[in-house]
């Protein structure tokens, strides 16, 4: 029996309304949580969200600095290194004092850096909110560490690079970026070029400069999500973060020129691995006004996702490929739209490449049937709703979007764009971005034979 897509209640209720031809203006927004936004005079923005889940609060401090800002030669990876330094304390709260407060709160804390942002987060019981806001305000304003502590931390960062080294997808990511970008800072990964990582111990002075440039209120958005009172949260932030001084630095991020001829990269992985193949085109930056980047997401799910004809052919029917997946994460500037396949046998690399290129041709030339387009829109909306299963998950999702547009409304605008995508939009975007001369193909294999010997 063929299970028909119509068996799914296609327009059952609120969540699908926007994708069923109803007036999208009346559809309830995809981000349904009550929230307030407050802009402080120093440029800091606060977003308070009622998640509906009891007792727990998530605090996310989103700084709009990432590896994208690393414009100076030799400084790649610095935003990430600096994220580590933020745990090195202040005069008032040295690392062990910071740790003691977080421990007493039973908090789960961490931080991460990406191309576009650095995010510091903690999830804990609501009664500890003010103490933790005070503590965090101190390190964002008064961070102080010795040169010795700086050097020590650079080695932890090198170890982090090394731990990632055994993952071939990391190597592929490095290869794609290096090939696609000639000018823009997305050329390097968030970890940075290895030679820069190895040179980090000498950059103490630059660290001080970096803090002065970017750890400023106008670069920062604070998310307080969970079981929290709007006015109380605002007053706490005012008290502890209100005196933070505005900065004035702006990095001049270079613009990537259009790619004029196709490229091909061969990458050698040091350990045995299945070959990886990536076909990439530079896609548009994230946007919630013009439709192109939303269209590209629809394309990625429909033509290259797990329910795509390509996946079914290569993975399920022919079984030549272990996995095929699209990759097009939201970015502030244009970023590669890639289709990546993990191929079981090196002999099939050319065949799989041909199938992927054939699919790109189909995106350009064959309109998508209306019911299949509806299925993608439905998928996108349910996927979003299903992911909002805790206060932490809601805050985490917001951190992503706020680093792109600084307001939760961008989520609703973006999902309205998804709802409005037509088959014509898809073909138009495909013809604009999937141009042969702008294509980059990367192939990663294990070339050398390195055998050990056994006496086990």
């Amino acid at each position, binding site marked *: 029996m063929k299970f028909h897509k119509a068996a*799914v209640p296609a327009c059952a209720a609120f969540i*699908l309304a926007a994708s069923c031809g109803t007036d999208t203006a009346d559809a309830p927004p995809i981000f349904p949580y009550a929230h307030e936004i407050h802009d402080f005079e120093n440029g800091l923005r606060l977003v308070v969200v009622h998640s509906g889940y009891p007792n727990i609060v998530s605090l996310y401090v989103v700084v709009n600095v990432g590896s994208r800002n690393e414009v100076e030669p030799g400084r790649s990876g610095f935003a990430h290194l600096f994220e580590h330094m933020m745990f090195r304390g202040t005069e008032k709260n040295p690392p062990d004092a910071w740790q003691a407060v977080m421990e007493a709160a039973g908090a789960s804390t961490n931080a991460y850096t990406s191309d576009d942002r650095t995010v510091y987060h903690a999830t804990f019981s609501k009664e500890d909110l003010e103490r933790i806001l005070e503590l965090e305000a101190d390190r964002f304003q008064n961070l102080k560490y010795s040169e010795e502590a700086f050097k020590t931390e650079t*080695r932890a960062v090198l*170890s982090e690079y*090394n731990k990632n080294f*055994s993952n071939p997808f990391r190597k592929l990511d490095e290869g794609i970026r290096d090939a696609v970008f000639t000018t823009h800072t997305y050329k390097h990964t968030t970890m940075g070029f290895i030679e820069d990582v190895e040179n980090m111990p000498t950059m103490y002075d630059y660290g001080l400069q970096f803090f002065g440039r970017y750890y400023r209120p106008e670069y920062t958005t604070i998310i307080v999500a969970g079981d929290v009172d709007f006015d109380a949260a605002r007053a706490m932030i005012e008290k502890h973060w209100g005196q933070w001084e505005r900065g004035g630095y702006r990095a001049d991020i270079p613009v990537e020129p259009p790619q004029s001829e196709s490229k091909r990269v061969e990458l050698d992985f040091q350990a045995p691995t299945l070959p990886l193949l990536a076909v990439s085109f530079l896609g548009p930056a994230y946007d919630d006004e013009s439709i192109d980047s939303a269209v590209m997401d629809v394309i990625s799910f429909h033509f290259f996702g797990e329910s795509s004809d390509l996946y079914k052919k290569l993975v399920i029917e022919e079984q030549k490929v*272990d996995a095929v997946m699209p990759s097009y994460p939201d970015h502030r500037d244009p970023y590669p739209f890639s289709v990546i396949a993990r191929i079981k046998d090196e002999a099939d690399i050319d065949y799989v490449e041909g199938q992927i290129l054939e699919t790109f041709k189909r995106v350009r030339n064959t309109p998508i049937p209306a019911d299949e387009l*509806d299925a993608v829109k439905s998928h996108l909306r349910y996927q979003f709703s299903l992911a909002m299963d805790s206060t932490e998950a809601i805050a985490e999702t917001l951190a992503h979007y706020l680093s792109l547009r600084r307001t939760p409304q961008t989520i609703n605008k973006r999902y309205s764009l998804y709802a409005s995508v037509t088959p014509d939009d898809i073909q138009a975007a495909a013809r604009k971005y999937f141009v042969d001369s702008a294509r980059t193909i990367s192939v990663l294999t294990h070339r050398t034979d390195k055998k050990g010997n056994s006496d*086990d």
Partner: protein
Amino acid sequence: MTDWKRSRPFAHAAFRAVAAAILVWAPAAHGAGPELLLQPGESPLITLRIVFRAGAASDLAGKEGAAALTAAMLSGGGSRQMSYDDIIDAFFPMAAGVSAQVDKEMTVFAGTTHAENLDAYYEILRQMLLDPGWRKDDFDRLKDKALNYLRVRLRGNNEEELGKEYLYLKIYGDHPYGHQNSGTVRSVEAMTIENVKTFYEANYRRGNLTIGLAGGYPADFPQRVRKDFEILEDGASEEIALPKPETPDKLRVHIIEKDTRSTLISLGFPIEVTRGHPDWPALKLAQSYFGQHRSSKSRLYQRIREIRGMNYGDYAYIEYFPRGMFLMQPESNLARRQQIFQIWIRPVVPENGLFALKTALYELDKLVREGIPEKDFAATVEFLRKYVNLLTQTQSSALGYALDDAYYGLPDFNGWIKQQLIGLTADAVNRAVTKHLWATDLDVVIITKDAQAMRRMLQTGARAKPMYASPPPDDILAEDKVIGGYKLDIGSIAIVPAEMVFEAVRSR
């Protein structure tokens, strides 16, 4: 000027994840339906966790990996009526799916759907688990995937998990826990579809089954599910006898030789304490103080990473915790009758490999000899008392913990641990540490490029001297000398190339 922008709540956002009363319907009599564990709530999301009390420990000799491949066939293959293609198409608009997780004693199928899609979703899930298609093309694909997991993804692409999984292999030897959950390369290669069907018939039985449901499902839904699952054969599979795992004499070192930039270390030994054991809360507290997962507060992290900058993190465990490099909190439904104590040292530069190993053992030895300082005891109690709330943040994790409680015979993990912490003393923790932990007789797995050099260093009892980017304070340098000379009492050292790991079942 401040600018307030208000956005008002919408009707459907008003739900709260109600901390629901848990109602367990035990089988009324022999032949009755499967056990249900219900956490009704008002969320529009409905979670199902379907747990069979059978897993890799039930794999027959030579058929290692059967439990995992069976679960993969159900969650990643077609039903009799629907091909896997059809299932993917049907799930896609709902953004839903069925995941499977197989451990030694448990197999869990989990999924969450929006209430609007419950009927369509559940009908597919029902077919997948109760009326499987057993198609050859699905089997070939999933077998290939299992082989690639062992050969490529684990051996080649995830050194940290490789070391941790190999440690379990070496500790358990020919014990029923002594093979990787996915099996060995040879056993999976030899697996047939008949082997998988046999596993299903023997173990997917009503007496092994607990069905967990959470969220805003309709009132008659539990009965409907229960009735459907009555199609499974009655009774339970026979419980696998577990011998007491052997504790090695001295240090038993296993070096995996692999072309890598780093040296990675995992070490451990079996413990008799599992969740529900009277000493578990005390040992849990000691573990949290000593090596709380992914937390900078713990002793190991402080001494190895924070002060010495040697790596990315260092942690300790008293329960199986796979995929720790991707997770901040452990997954549920990995309950076991036997556990190990484990230390995980994340990659260090090869020059610091021996020193990192010595530091971990020196610190463990110190913990056993001196116990937990009183102030750290109090701080850890305070931490755990609140931290446990984060473990059950999502509907799915709350349901998973409740299912584990049923396995271990606990009332409610969250309440139980808080209650236990109230009466706990530092003395009791230190007594448990002395009784259950040691730093001498254990297995050590080291992954490194130059295995022979590592062996020589270990054999000759070399002093270890750390390499620093910046010299630490004098008291640390003084301690370095003590740690550098810390004597390792080594019983045996074996070297294995990475490509031989998980190849076949072998004894220690």
